[in-house]
């Protein structure tokens, strides 16, 4: 009996040779290394973005998904890491990315037309390896289409990225990866921030152009300027362990703590958009 077991065991090991190192050995769950997402509030909430794992960020339109993506890309490219963006809806804006600090030369942008292309492109990039961050943006694809993506695709992605230094970030409107994601973050839109020109004398409720009186610029459209937006983040799933040995310092306490929600604000860098290209690059 024991001899049969041994023979069977050696046969299995032989069959899996080269693919699985030790199929019968218990595999300890490795401690997840996390890195900064570029937004301190999100880092405090989640403990950072885990490497070698799937991070799912979901929420409705204008909920700050793109801002979080750009921040993460900015942080990774600043660390000289190559990043890839698989753009399911071809909605990426290089101008706002550059304003967010993304080093575009280190970003591979794949403009897809549908879900199938996006998934196949993700497969190819994961096989290619050695990217610091691979972002799969399905935000503009209808939720029911993304829902039809079989679960084994997400599982395959998770397995492909495992034991690699790559962060696989998935952006959607709804959560689909479920248990395949090591970190799930739900985002909701907050209040937009508007700045106003100073009011000269008149009360705020006064009409914009009172006859003979001072002008209330705040009632005029050009008296307002979009300053930024805010978003609320909520951790829906996290496998970032307590006592994480990752090198991102701020994350450990946050991951172990009870806080499950956080709010972050974004800013519009209008000065940047008005600069000529040479000044933008300086």
């Amino acid at each position, binding site marked *: 009996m024991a001899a049969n077991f041994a023979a069977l065991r050696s046969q299995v090991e032989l069959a899996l040779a080269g693919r699985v190192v030790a199929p019968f050995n218990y595999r300890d769950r490795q401690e997840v290394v996390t*890195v*900064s997402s*570029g*937004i301190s509030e999100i880092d405090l909430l989640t403990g950072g973005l885990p490497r070698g794992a799937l991070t799912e960020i979901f929420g*409705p*339109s*204008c909920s700050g998904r*793109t*801002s*979080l*993506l750009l*921040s993460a890309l*900015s942080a990774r*490219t*600043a*660390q*000289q890491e*190559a990043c890839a963006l698989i753009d399911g*809806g071809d*909605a990426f804006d*290089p*101008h706002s*990315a550059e304003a*967010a*600090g*993304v*080093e*575009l*030369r280190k970003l*591979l*942008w794949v*403009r897809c037309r549908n879900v199938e*292309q996006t998934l196949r*492109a993700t497969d190819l*990039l994961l096989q*290619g390896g050695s990217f*610091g961050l691979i972002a799969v943006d399905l*935000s*503009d*694809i*209808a*939720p029911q289409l993304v829902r039809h993506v079989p679960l084994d695709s997400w599982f395959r992605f998770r397995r492909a990225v495992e034991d690699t*230094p790559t962060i696989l970030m998935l952006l959607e409107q709804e959560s689909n990866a479920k248990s395949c994601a090591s970190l799930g973050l739900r985002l909701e839109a907050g209040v*937009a921030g508007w700045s106003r020109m100073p009011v000269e004398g008149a009360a705020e409720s006064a009409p914009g152009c009172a006859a003979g009186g001072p002008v209330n610029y705040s009632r005029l459209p*050009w008296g*307002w300027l*979009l300053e*930024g937006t805010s978003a609320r983040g909520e951790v829906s799933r996290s496998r970032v362990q307590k006592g994480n040995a990752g*090198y*991102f*310092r701020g994350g450990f306490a946050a991951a172990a703590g009870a806080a499950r929600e956080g709010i972050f*604000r*974004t*800013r*519009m860098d209008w000065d*940047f958009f008005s600069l*000529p*290209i*040479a000044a*933008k690059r300086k």
Partner: protein
Amino acid sequence: MVQAVLRAEGELRDREKAVALVDETAPLINVVAANDAAWRAGIQLGMAQTQAQLCGVEIRRRSRAQEKAAHAALLDLGWSMSPRVEEHAQDTILADLAGLNSLFGAEENIAREFARRAAELHLRVQVAVSTNLEVAVHAARGFAGITVIPEGEEARYLSGLPAQTLAPSAEALETLERWGIRTCAALGALPVLELSERLGQEGVRLQELARGAHTRALVLAEPVEILEEEMELDDAVEDLEPLAFVLGRLLDQVCARLAARALSAAAIRVRFDLGDAFEKEEQVLNEQFSTKRFGEKTGIRAAGVNAVDGNGQSGTSAAKAELKMRANVVAKATTHKDSRVTTQAQDFSASVNCKDAEKTYEKVLNLPVPMRDSKMLLKLLRLQLQADPPSGAIVKITLGADPARPRSTQHGLFVPNSPDPEKLELTVARLAKLVGNANIGSPELTDTHRPGEFRMNRFFPQMNETRGRGRASKKSASDGNGEPAARRPATGCRIFRPRLAARVELREGRPAKIFFRGLYGRVVTASGPWRISGDWWREDAWQQEEWDLQIAFDGESAGVSASVLMNAPANMHAIAPVQDVKAQMRAGLYCVYYDGACRSWFVRGMYD
């Protein structure tokens, strides 16, 4: 000639099969060269192809393209050992060995290294080392294997060689044979003065060569800038799959030549001659030639023999046979004004090339880093060809490589891992096949204020450079762990491509209601108009009034949606059906603009 064919066909080379080469000297197809095994099998020079087939040898058609490539490979072999190389003949090179002793040791070791490297290039060579250039040439042609001739013993070594090895003219050879002079020793023993009286200066030169006393300087060859390999296919190939084998073989040869010169390829150029075009042009050529010909068929043979002059045959029997043939044909050509015919034939070949240039298919595979891995190059080339296949059947393939210095990198201890350039290039090529070449790359902002303008560059991250030029890398401070300190993030924007047509209702000069994607929205807050314009000196000048709008979507508009949808992009529903749009677009911040050029409203994007 035979070496050129064997180099391209590994099976023949490895099994040491008897091979005879035939060439068309209309109306016959005759044997023009063969290897030793074929001579032993009874093959004779000038034998008809049908007769040769009865001897049970492999018959191959002579390929001048392969001979040219084999000659180039031979030169590469020379340059891989020494920077001073002479291009002596089609089958012979001379290399200066000065200074090589410190690298390889004795001269015999150097010669062995030559033979080893030649084998890597799929060439079988005979190597001779001598202090005298001409002695080295004749010894290499006359003796098999490796021959090292000590200084002062040149005459003794050459004495046993037949006089034909010295390549005398047909008349001189005939005279020498009449005299009974058959070896170099006999020729060297003749008195110079009498020989000069009878054979002129050629006799003196031959006598010096036979004694190993003729001296001259090395004539250096210039290294070629593009390494090329060619192959003519017996049958036209239409599918790319069978072509991959041929391309692989050519790439192997090119990479071996690159390796011999310690170089890599910066770009791979492939050119296909397409079948239909080629046949038509051949027809034209034949018609033209039949109307303008100057001489008889013998004249054409003389033109071909000029190329045979530099024959790549080795071995005494082959040399003898070739020499007889050459003497025979030269005699005939003289009577038929061969020079005029040769010139005319060259003109025709030039015209064919010009016409073929329009019918050829060319592809350049530019590589981000110099590469020399033939398998990787083949994969990249196949992906390129699959994306843009040739329009006709292929009859000839020319594959070239632009040589460059190999990539040398020094990885830093604290520099993060970056994708391997070769692997990355393959991944990008596969992605390009999937999404299209225009849809993959690294975006770069262009030097203009026109909204949304950018260009796509080839993605090649320079990871070993110092900190990048990006704003984050300069402005953000590190938190001490190498991570940038988090700061207030920039608002992201999502662009609608192509732009969305919208209908906007203005109230007191500001947008109050907006209709797009079949949805009705109420403007809660508006900021604008931000007037921008540019390129007024061009035809595509632009002028826009931009608004940032906070919109609350209340529901679908019954009357407006149809007209709005007419202007909407065709693929809009593929991205987000109307029901989903309603669900997701409850409220949001949008960038909307009025295009002064077409007097319409559009939604540029959404702040997210």
